[in-house]
């Protein structure tokens, strides 16, 4: 069981959370300008890092807020969690599209 620190509520058991996949994937600025390939990238292609990964979680049965985390996908250790809208720590920004 993972122990996840919600930035708003503190450390809680994994069962209180819902996983949301890769963080910092921005909606296209101009959706009409996208090619089919670019739409495929936005909809279906995500990083699948072996190591540090910036991802989204929701404290589903707590404050219900979405937030971001940097977690190691091999050891499952959380390096940090931070509120939605905050920048990813240096070195783990998404390679895919995303806003800072």
């Amino acid at each position, binding site marked *: 069981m993972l122990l996840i620190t919600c930035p708003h509520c503190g450390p809680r058991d994994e069962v209180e959370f819902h996983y949301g996949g890769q963080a910092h994937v921005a909606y296209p600025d101009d959706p009409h300008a996208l090619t089919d390939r670019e*739409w*495929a990238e936005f*909809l279906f292609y995500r990083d*699948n890092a072996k190591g540090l990964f910036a991802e989204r979680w929701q404290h589903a049965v707590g404050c219900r807020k979405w937030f971001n985390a940097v*977690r190691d*996908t091999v050891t499952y250790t959380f390096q940090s969690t931070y509120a939605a809208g905050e920048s990813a720590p240096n070195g783990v920004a998404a390679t895919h599209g995303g806003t800072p």
Partner: protein
Amino acid sequence: MAEKLPEHPDFLWRNPDPKSSYDAIIVGGGGHGLATAYYLASQHGMTNIAVLEKGWLGGGNMARNTTIIRSNYLWDESAAIYEHSLKLWEQLPEELDYDFLFSQRGVLNLAHTLQDVRESQRRVNANALNGVDAYFLSPEEVKEVCPIINIGDDIRYPIMGATYQPRAGIAKHDHVAWAFARRCDQLGVDLIQNCEVTGFLKDGDRVVGVETTRGRISAGKVGLAAAGHSSVLAELAGVRLPIQSHPLQALVSELFEPVHPTVVMSNHVHVYVSQAHKGELVMGAGIDSYNGYGQRGAFHVIEEQMAAAVELFPIFARAHVLRTWGGIVDTTLDASPIISDTPVEELYVNCGWGTGGFKGTPASGYTFAHMIATGAAHPLNKSFSLDRFETGHLIDEHGAAAVAH
């Protein structure tokens, strides 16, 4: 009485050093890689080939799955490839001259809600149109197939019926790998263990070999069949895959006399269980939600699957868990595999089998070998290409995949 297992000879294949060059290299010495090499050699006459495995043969997901084989998928494309696979399973023990205990004991996919019932009946009808054996059973008929199951209505999700595929079953997974490996070796294929691919050699947009922990090996064609690590590997070749890797857990009980005569799966309460030839109850659930490569998962997933299993099979309450483990599955957004060429010439990928790769082993190898040998898709795998994510021709099998991912 537990069934007697086939003898395991000491040496089923040679352990050659890698040559400097092959006509084709398959990366990944699990079921899919071995089956690919087997069909390359037996169907396409390519024998100057090697299978590279970073650990030991059949030691990845081949050693971690719950061995279920079935073909009752919803969509035409999936029914075609999984039914072809089932037909290959039916002939492989004789063809490979190796008894891997393929046991066609049937599979029940339970329905617990009115929506489940409707989906199940729809799938049974779709199966019938595709020549797949499938029936919809009432709770009483379910009980006849599997007498230990609880069809009472005093549980949270009573059984309202089930689909039944009598030709489905299980096989002894290790022996399947050994059967393919032995025949590959006899056909001249080099099976090279402890040989991890660390990079790709390219000439412009064309792959010409691989860098490995045992040196450079050149190759005319390279096929990737690395399951959970597919995207990590493909990235080394500059190819991005629409794959997410997740832990999928399974467990076995101690040994019991035969009590469970078939395979029971439930997507709704999330457990699937069969009894291994030796007597263990083998069960699994859905994937853990988060991405991971750690080959382990969270305990609450096991707790939930055990709770579901004990409601469905009250006698399991007395069974002790002997061991649990996790494999890393490579999932796609439409729960269907990818068997495809790539933007890199002569580099092919076979991945995205998610939680259902074992049953697909023969057809996966059969179609992938065709693709590698001829450079073109076999009719059975042309819909399972990478470009479906661009064209929108997805094959959405989340319902029939039977495991949430």
